[in-house]
């Protein structure tokens, strides 16, 4: 059991290694849906992306269906590439990463948003009640939260 956890830790580490120097993101508590490591790199023009890691330990499969913020004119949940998805699946017991090069929430009309700013974002789920969080704006082209 411990060895399996270690293998899982290696996996998380390996996944994180693509985008982050840091080791794996710790698991959230049982019974909860948690959000970690959220950030928005400063957009070069007006289009940006929100990245975060969702950990679904609720016992129920869920999906991220929307993310809204007053800072953006429009938002859309995208799978890898730019494909619009109806909802990003958040299987029970799994961490789901929205990370550079993969799934993300696209934010358009992000005018004047700069590194150091904070955006208030509300995540909406198929099952779980909405979660509102403060998201730091990282330097342009960042692969990880500041």
């Amino acid at each position, binding site marked *: 059991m411990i060895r399996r956890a270690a293998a899982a830790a290696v996996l998380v580490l390996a996944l994180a290694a693509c985008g982050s120097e840091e080791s794996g993101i710790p698991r959230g508590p049982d019974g909860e849906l948690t959000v970690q490591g959220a950030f928005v790199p400063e957009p070069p023009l007006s289009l940006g992306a929100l990245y975060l890691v969702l950990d679904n330990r609720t016992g129920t499969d869920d999906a991220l269906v929307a993310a809204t913020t007053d800072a953006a004119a429009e938002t859309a949940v995208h799978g890898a590439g730019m494909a619009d998805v109806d909802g990003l699946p958040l299987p029970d017991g799994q961490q789901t990463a929205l990370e550079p*090069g993969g799934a993300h929430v696209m934010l358009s009309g992000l005018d004047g948003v700069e590194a150091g700013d904070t955006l208030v974002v509300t995540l909406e789920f198929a099952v779980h009640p909405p979660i509102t969080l403060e998201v730091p704006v990282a330097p342009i082209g960042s692969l990880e939260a500041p």
Partner: protein
Amino acid sequence: LRRGLRRAGMLLLAVTTIAACGGSTGSDAGGSFQGTELTEGAARPSFTLTDTEGQPYDFAAETAGRTTLLFFGYTSCPDICPVHLATIATALETQDVVLPDVEVVMVTVDPERDTQEVLRSYLDKFDPSFVGLTGTLAEVEAAQEAAGLTVAVPEADEDGNLTGIVGHSAQVIGIGADDVQHVAWPFGTRASVYAHDIAELGRLEPGAAAP
């Protein structure tokens, strides 16, 4: 047993993931690149587009004999393009290794939306010295073919908003002063890898390969 298999699967996936990140798989002996080494010896591609001043830019002629980074991207690309450009800008500021003068050229694959003005304001956010090239759709397609890449196809809705790009090549190509394509850097390449490889490119002599 099932548990064991699953564990093996996880480890395998982890190893695959590490490999998929690319980077320093090659040996660190002199002359080797940490990005993906291009061994076919393809020449510096030849195409003419329009720069952000509205002037014709003959890529092969303008960059001949110079270390060059060539990237095909688009300004409404939410993540891959800014990560590459910001990482390159960081790499070029590195003091750890001796870097040659480098020409960084981004060619848009979405010329309909990426006008000269849009490209200029986009690239200025990373480094005002980065060259931005645009043209007609046929011209930028020809440039991608000249560089040996699959041609990216922009897709837009009825209002002309970009809805996606199919087949966009996410790598940056490194060309030496010898006018040969030596290395490709995949998405996720770190600034230290860029700096190492740009320094390697800088050791190549101009004209080593006859045109």
